[in-house]
């Protein structure tokens, strides 16, 4: 592995489908719990690259080793965008979880999925994938609704006079092989549209936590604990522009620290599995 200072960029997976990954070793005595960061999808992935890196650094500083990775056909991983579908993404999550366990020796893995990353993670858990905990960061729950929103936003972008001032509103020709500017397969569109993230479908039913905006409820995902995002937290889903980058704001930093503390305590204070009907514990960030 190369060494980029406090974290290690490397490849995981086999020849022909190598995935870009970055391992953030714990910088204080390790807690025994590692975090697998499942990235958001499409435009949200690149826009949030810096934010996910900062979150991983922060967690590692608190003693929690982390692994970031790019799905096949996205980011710096091998493959074209149209090579990516739900099956390949499930395989990628399995490869990344195994890589985290193998490289750090952690006894427990928490999968921290951001936005659209919830959809492949949910599919992986339904197919028997196993982690000890799930943390869902502003999760996309309704795949069909989300794909519809993205298709509408993509069409709006192609007729945008701000993007194409010289076309005078004459729309660019659309394509069902593109979404938010990224190459996607018809299969991936169908796959994502077919996912409704629901804990009922998860085979091993790991306990789930959420990182949510104030007032957001997720009926299909009973959350044992919720960390509330501050008002200044960047919205990954806002806009279609690539020329913005999301950062960890001071308020968001407190949420990440609270999450790190909670994860670090897991090994010493194991918590019972959530049951249907349990109340959520909401934890607001200090502002």
């Amino acid at each position: 592995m190369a060494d980029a200072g406090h974290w290690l960029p490397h490849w995981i997976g086999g020849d022909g489908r190598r995935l870009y990954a970055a391992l953030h070793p714990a910088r204080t005595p390790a807690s025994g719990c590692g975090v697998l960061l499942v990235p958001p999808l499409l435009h949200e992935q690149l826009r949030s690259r810096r934010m996910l890196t900062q979150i991983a650094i922060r967690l590692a500083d608190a003693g929690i080793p982390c692994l970031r990775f790019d799905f096949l056909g996205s980011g710096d991983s091998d493959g074209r965008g149209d090579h990516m579908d739900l099956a390949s993404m499930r395989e990628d999550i399995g490869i990344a979880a195994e890589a985290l366990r193998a490289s750090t020796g952690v006894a427990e893995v928490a999968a921290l999925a951001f936005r659209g990353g919830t959809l492949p993670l949910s599919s992986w858990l339904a197919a028997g994938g196993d982690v000890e905990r799930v943390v869902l960061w502003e999760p996309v729950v309704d795949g069909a609704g989300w794909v519809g929103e993205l298709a509408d936003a993509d069409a709006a972008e192609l007729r945008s006079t701000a993007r194409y001032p010289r076309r005078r509103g004459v729309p660019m020709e659309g394509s069902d092989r593109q979404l938010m500017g990224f190459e996607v397969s018809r299969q991936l569109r169908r796959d994502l549209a077919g996912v409704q993230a629901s804990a009922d479908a998860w085979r091993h039913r790991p306990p789930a936590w959420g990182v949510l905006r104030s007032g957001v409820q997720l009926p299909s995902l009973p959350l044992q604990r919720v960390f509330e995002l501050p008002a200044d937290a960047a919205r990954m889903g806002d806009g279609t522009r690539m020329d913005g980058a999301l950062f960890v704001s001071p308020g968001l930093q407190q949420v990440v620290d609270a999450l790190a503390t909670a994860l670090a305590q897991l090994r010493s204070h194991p918590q019972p599995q959530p049951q249907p009907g349990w109340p959520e514990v909401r934890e607001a960030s200090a502002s």
Partner: protein
Amino acid sequence: MNQLVTFGPDQHLVGILSGDPVSTAPVLVLPNAGLIPRAGPFRLHVELAERLAAHGIRTFRFDTPGVGEAPRLSGCDTQEATLAALDHLAEHHGVDRFVVGGVCSAADLGWALATRDRRVVGLLMLDGISFTGFWFHFARIAGALRRGPGAWFGIARRLLGRTAANATAAAAGAGRMPFIADERGWPGRAEARRQFAALVRRGARSLWIYTGGYADLFLHPRQFVAMFGRVARSSAVEMHYWPDCDHTFYARQHRDRLLGTIEQWMLTQERAGWSAR
């Protein structure tokens, strides 16, 4: 073949070197464009790396300090980081010639590096340095006239609004509205012209593409020659104006056109042997 490379102060910067490790062709160096991480707008850099790797040509894409995964590094700005990339590739991968550039700020970096480092034998200038002038204003007025009287009121309102904003800024002590050339570190027009002439004279090749998304700075193909003079007509210089495209090549068909153009340009220069330094 993709290889992870760490370089720069304490090896804190990360890049990906693609292509044939034994190739002797210049390496295309692609710094991040603006705040978009090294994969490029809509993975443009990844796809370009794949295309060029099929011909054995190497590319190197990386995040400059403060963008994507790269930390901010005291004493290492984007130019220093790019120079560190060139030095690392030269020392550890046997590269002695580079093509540098990309979209917007990456083009600016290419220009800045080419003017200070003779190892840079080629420039990829996508919505890069530009100065308005007669042809720009001609195109703007012609465009307004073409749109007919119905649009003139709106155009006049926007121009007046801009004038008022300038006046407000001046009254607030700003002195003058910030000019994009200042923000992007461009030299003045005369200096840019002199620098470009020197680059062409020493044999550097350059591919320039201006898009419709750059309408505040470039509106007419003749603007290019007006900016740089006769040297812009040199065989070492290739320029395209694509008014139908946007600044980050959002549409698949636009990216395909761009990728094909860059690929052909790189192959043509490679067949011609690039240049002496």
